[in-house]
């Protein structure tokens, strides 16, 4: 028996979401188990199962992420606040070192 991670979605076009995991002998059995445990027979549009052993994972630390976002705010539309002044154009004096 091996652990399988279960992903599913209920309507076409949605991204698949992780629902949890099941223990089964193979992929077929894992699909059946996933449906019976997590999904009523006709509720879902698509189910994926994959052996947990086949998953590679990366977990980040919150500190690094907060810093990374602060460091790269130049990538966000909100970083550019200069507006086209309605009454003709006046450039805000913005020193860009």
């Amino acid at each position, binding site marked *: 028996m091996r652990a399988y991670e279960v992903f599913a979605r209920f309507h076409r076009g949605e991204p698949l979401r992780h629902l949890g995991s099941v223990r089964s002998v193979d992929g077929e059995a894992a699909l059946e188990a996933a449906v019976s445990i997590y999904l009523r027979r006709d509720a879902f549009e698509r189910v994926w199962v994959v052996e947990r052993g086949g998953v590679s994972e990366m977990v980040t630390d919150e*500190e*690094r992420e907060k*810093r*990374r976002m602060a*460091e*790269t705010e130049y990538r966000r539309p909100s970083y550019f606040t200069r507006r086209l002044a309605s009454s003709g154009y006046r*450039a805000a*004096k*913005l*020193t*860009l*070192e």
Partner: protein
Amino acid sequence: MKREVQDAFHRYLLSLADDELVAGYRATEWTGIAPTLEEDVAFSSIGQDEVGHARAYYALLHELTGTMVDYRARQPDEYLHAQLVELACAPRYHADGNHAAGGDWAFALVRQYLYDLFDAERLQALRGSAWEPLAQQVEKMQREEKYHLHHGQLWFDRLALPDEGLAEDKGESRGRLRRALERAWPDALGLFEPVANEALLVRERLVPATAQDLLQRWLDRLHPLSERYRLPFPAERVDGSWNVTVEPRRGGRQGRHTADWTQLWDDMTSVYRLDPTATW
């Protein structure tokens, strides 16, 4: 801080900022043309990190001296980065169509890795700097540097180690890595050229480790990798420490640079120099 100490420390911080600036410029030259799409995106992030670090260091210079350093206004010989980071290795686009070929991705990886290993040792040492703003700044940057080293390590694994079960013994890629390393040694060792008055900065504990200390630590970290990948190593063990077997090429820390730098400086400042007083 005494005038003489501040001047020496100002030059030291400038060498940090310029190292990161020029390393970032050379790395981002590969944006749009790297060997694979996935690597193009990853390597561009590394280049952007370095330029971001340069901005942080220039801001520290402002804090130290009270005057805003506009890096763009300096002449080529006022930059204090090591020559390793200025060397060109990407193909160059020409509007008339005869582009400069000879792009060398092996050198781009090797240079970035050797520089990141140096920067990791430098940052670790500066954690102990007596100037608190610098000690705090470097602590933040270490997280990014860890990722840069990991990225480089992944590439050495892929290009230098044979895949199990594949006939291809990576001969082609190993040969290119070897040539890139041999080309890089003189300038890589040039990273460890001390700035003027280093002894004063060490005495004042503004800079906790000398360039020679960093060289030994850098070689300590590089040696096991050259063993693992069976690739060249620029030093030999004599009485418990490393003796370099390659002549370092110095000058960068005194503002002496190569033609590659004059070209990059010209590109980098060309629009700004159209009107240095304008807001760009």
